[in-house]
């Protein structure tokens, strides 16, 4: 509950402050957001299955973001940044869908 509130606060602060990301962050920010969304959906699923753990969430969130950014960074250095960005988005997209399906089964029992 407070988590949703925190998310809303972050969104509100972003809207109000109207920040612009530094340009070196541009390739990584969307990837990091997708990775973080995966962690959030995983956490939501765990909460519904009554196995949510704060530490696991924090570690998975941070490691997801860092690994995703690292993969894209290495990809950029190798000249395949675009393809690896796509790969990261596809992988996290699949995981988000899987978690969303689990959440749906929990909530609607279907």
């Amino acid at each position, binding site marked *: 509950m407070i988590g949703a509130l925190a998310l*809303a606060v*972050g969104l509100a602060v972003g809207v109000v402050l109207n920040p612009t990301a530094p340009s070196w962050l541009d390739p990584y920010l969307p990837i990091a957001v997708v990775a973080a969304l995966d962690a959030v959906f995983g956490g939501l699923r765990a909460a519904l299955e009554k196995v*949510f753990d704060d530490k696991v969430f*924090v570690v998975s969130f941070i490691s997801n973001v860092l690994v995703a950014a690292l993969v894209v960074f290495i990809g950029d250095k190798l000249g395949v940044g675009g393809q690896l960005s796509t790969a990261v988005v596809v992988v996290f997209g699949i995981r988000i869908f899987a978690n969303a399906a689990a959440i749906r089964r929990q909530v609607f029992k279907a």
Partner: protein
Amino acid sequence: MRAVRRPELGSLRRPGRARVAVWVLLAVLGFGITVSVRAHSGAAGLSNARPDDLVGILDDLDAKGRRLQSEADSLQETRDRLNGSDSGAEALAEARSRAEGLAILAGTVGAQGPGIEVTIDDSGGRVGADVLVDAIQELRDAGAEALQVGAVRVVASTAVVDPTGGGIAVDGHHLGPPYRILAIGDAHTLAQAMQIPGGVLDTVASRDGAVASVATPALVRITAVRP
């Protein structure tokens, strides 16, 4: 801290450090979402473009810039020349040379210069307006500045038709074989345009009794004018 905790109980109890970290991370995520949404919509997608695409875009812009710069230079030069001359003589000369160029294009004056002469002999009456139109178009594409067929000046509005009774009518003037086309322009380019495979010479050669030839005299005189 317990490894597994019920969220309801966790919310009621005084929040642990890990729980606070969860909230902070969620707030950061919300912030990050707005930032990345704004970054994506703001810079027209350029910031997300890959280096290869950016290099291509930059090259295009460079080329465009150079072209515009050279155009600006030549216009500036013209302006300076027009401004700098104390009398209107320069402007008059400029206008006169432009009028001359336009007159040649419009066909109201004669012209002479390097060029080619194409002769199409057609004893069998097999060469019609289509061949002549093809030849005229090829010559125009190859950069012919002035054209004459027989004694008729060819300009933008010239019509070529097959009249009844054979021959070819150019702008209403009835012409019979051999057809003589004069073109002023780069002689080599014009001759190449006639000789390309499948071009005018090939087409004429495929018709019975028709022969076409290209000559490159040192000086081509176009004397026919339009009223």
